[in-house]
């Protein structure tokens, strides 16, 4: 197994774990954690293709991952703020119970 293949397999495994968590767990914070894991799996793919692909000196993969980390941080901040705001209205973070728009 080449290094690129093992990196991609690790990334696929990480993505699947994140997807399973986001689908199965009912707590909104854990759903957000699952999404973060999926984003990290995508980042690992970028780094692996940058490292083992051609034109590594252009640094496109690294720059993409840096921007992706920035966007993921913004997403986490807004998501957690939304969860806290929702909790204030409804006193729950269970995504099954959050089923009405007017709270």
């Amino acid at each position, binding site marked *: 197994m080449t290094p690129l*293949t093992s990196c991609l*397999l690790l990334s696929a495994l990480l993505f699947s774990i994140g997807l399973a968590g986001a689908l199965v*767990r009912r707590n909104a914070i854990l759903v957000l954690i699952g999404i973060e*894991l999926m984003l990290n799996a995508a980042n690992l793919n970028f*780094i692996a293709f940058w490292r083992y692909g051609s034109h590594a000196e252009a640094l496109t993969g690294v720059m993409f991952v840096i921007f992706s980390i920035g966007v993921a941080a913004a997403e986490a901040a807004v998501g957690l703020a939304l969860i*806290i705001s929702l909790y204030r209205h409804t006193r729950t973070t269970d995504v099954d119970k959050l089923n009405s728009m007017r709270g």
Partner: protein
Amino acid sequence: MPKDLSERIILLFTIFAILTVTGAVAAMSLRNLVHSVLALTVAFSGLAAVYLLLGAQFVGLAQILVYVGAVAILVVFAILLTRDSGTVPLISGGSWRLLRGSGIVVFAVFGVLAWAICHSSVGRHTVHLSHDTSIYEIGNVMMQRFALPLEIVGALLTVALIGAVTIAMQEKEGRR
């Protein structure tokens, strides 16, 4: 690259990959949310070590700073501010249909991905990086070719953080 060094790198990669996957599984399956976040930091640290092994020093250190340092703390604060989420059941009662459906989706996704990775030709001819990339080069590229995206990410972060503060701010009677 000498054979001994390359074998050592493969061993290190295996260790960090196992650490990452174990941390991720624990983060997604533990009942106590604080334990879950601790497992998440283990997974993020393992991933940062994998980045360092792959020669992306800046990304590995940024991963530790942003994810292990900032995002994990943010999640802990969110958990402590939402009192009902100290300990949550793994699956809420009566959702076995959901569990079965999710299991099918997850295994289908992983199966397709693994099949595609193992059968593609992309892994066979790989170019090896001759030189390590320094932070100097990353800064050069960031200030020249990627200057506009950098500014946009800065603006996005500012807007997102102001928005997050506005959303999470305590509502007063009648006005915010």
